[in-house]
């Protein structure tokens, strides 16, 4: 199962907070984080990797970006 986190329109640190909460709490092994700016993409990716997670895929979808994270 994959959990979707919609962090579009939110600025730092909210997207990172939501991602880390989901990594810490949920039972889903895969997370998909939607962001709409480069800084959030970099920050979410960096935070996930720092937590020992694997960033499986980064997909541009129009103005948004979908980051797929596998929990470590």
């Amino acid at each position, binding site marked *: 199962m994959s959990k979707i986190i919609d962090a*579009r*329109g*939110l*600025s*730092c*640190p*909210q997207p*990172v*907070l*939501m991602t*880390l909460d989901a990594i810490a709490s949920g039972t889903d092994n895969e997370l998909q984080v939607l962001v*709409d*700016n*480069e*800084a959030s993409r*970099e*920050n979410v*990716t*960096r*935070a996930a*990797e*720092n937590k020992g997670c694997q*960033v499986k895929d*980064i997909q541009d979808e129009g*103005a948004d970006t979908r980051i797929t994270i596998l929990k470590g």
Partner: protein
Amino acid sequence: MKIKNFFSSQWGIISVGAIIGILAPLLQKLGNPGNMGICVACFERDIAGAVGLHRAGVVQYMRPEIIGFVLGSLAAAYAFKEFKPRCGSAPIVRFVLGIFAMVGALVFLGCPWRAMLRLAGGDLNAVTGLLGLASGIWIGVMFLKNGYNLGRSQATHAGAGWMLPLIMLGFLALMLIYPQVAGEEKSGVLFYSLKGPGLMHASLIVSLVVGLAIGFLAQRSRFCTMGALRDLILFGQTHLLSGFLALVVFALATNLALGQFKLGFAGQPVAHTAHVWNFLGMTLAGLAFALAGGCPGRQLFLAGEGDSDAGVFVMGMIVGAGFAHNFGLASSPKGVGPHGIAAVIVGFAVCLFIGFAMKKTAA
């Protein structure tokens, strides 16, 4: 996963901090005020003076560095397809936070950038200021952990994203139309200082070029002094902090090389030794920056890449400078202003209200 943008890497943010750390003391050497090669709060306050929002005669100058920060960021955002016009994340709250961020910064006499530059120049009062900054950000982090947020922004028309850059272009045009005239307090509609920090400045072209370069680099690297401490406290992350530390180290080395280092508390340039108010002024500023999501520099860079909510925060800071000097809230080298203490207390009350009130879950 490789990060494609070098400046967002660890070495990228360190090099940007180092470049700012070298350029700021050089600007001081070329004419900017002492330990104030760059101070976002002080320079926005000077801009408020230049357009007559306050009439404190010693701090009136249209600082090209600020104009450059916004336009440099705008150029970087366009060059790398990151210009994203957006608006609507509680703009009036950001305006009010901008006002009190400025009030707190002017009680201390400097933004986080200047706090670091003051430290790097040997001004030990900066230690109290930086401890205050960290305390304010820590309070902000507590709110963030409890669900504080200002809500989502929305994509909007490019014109909205252009508003603050256009205001800055307008300011630059005014400066070119009404240049400083030696010995005159006014040139056309603009006010200039005849003495004090407002008279001390590098040449327009040098200030503008340095501002543009820093604006460009800071947009690429997301350099943020508040974020440096916030991410450390909130996530234990040291990415932005490494840029922050690089700034201090390189500014210290540059000051030593230029003979601009003087260690001590007393007699420091544009500073006072009221320790409690240095601490609490920066606590208030740090809290306001944390609640608004960026230090004053970062707000300028965000505004340059189309974030008009950050632009509203900037306007709040400029208006806040008007209040700060008209109401006697700002400190001077003699000490805190006659109503500075009251303003800090009011500022805390307002920021705590905002921290508790803005908790709607991001739906």
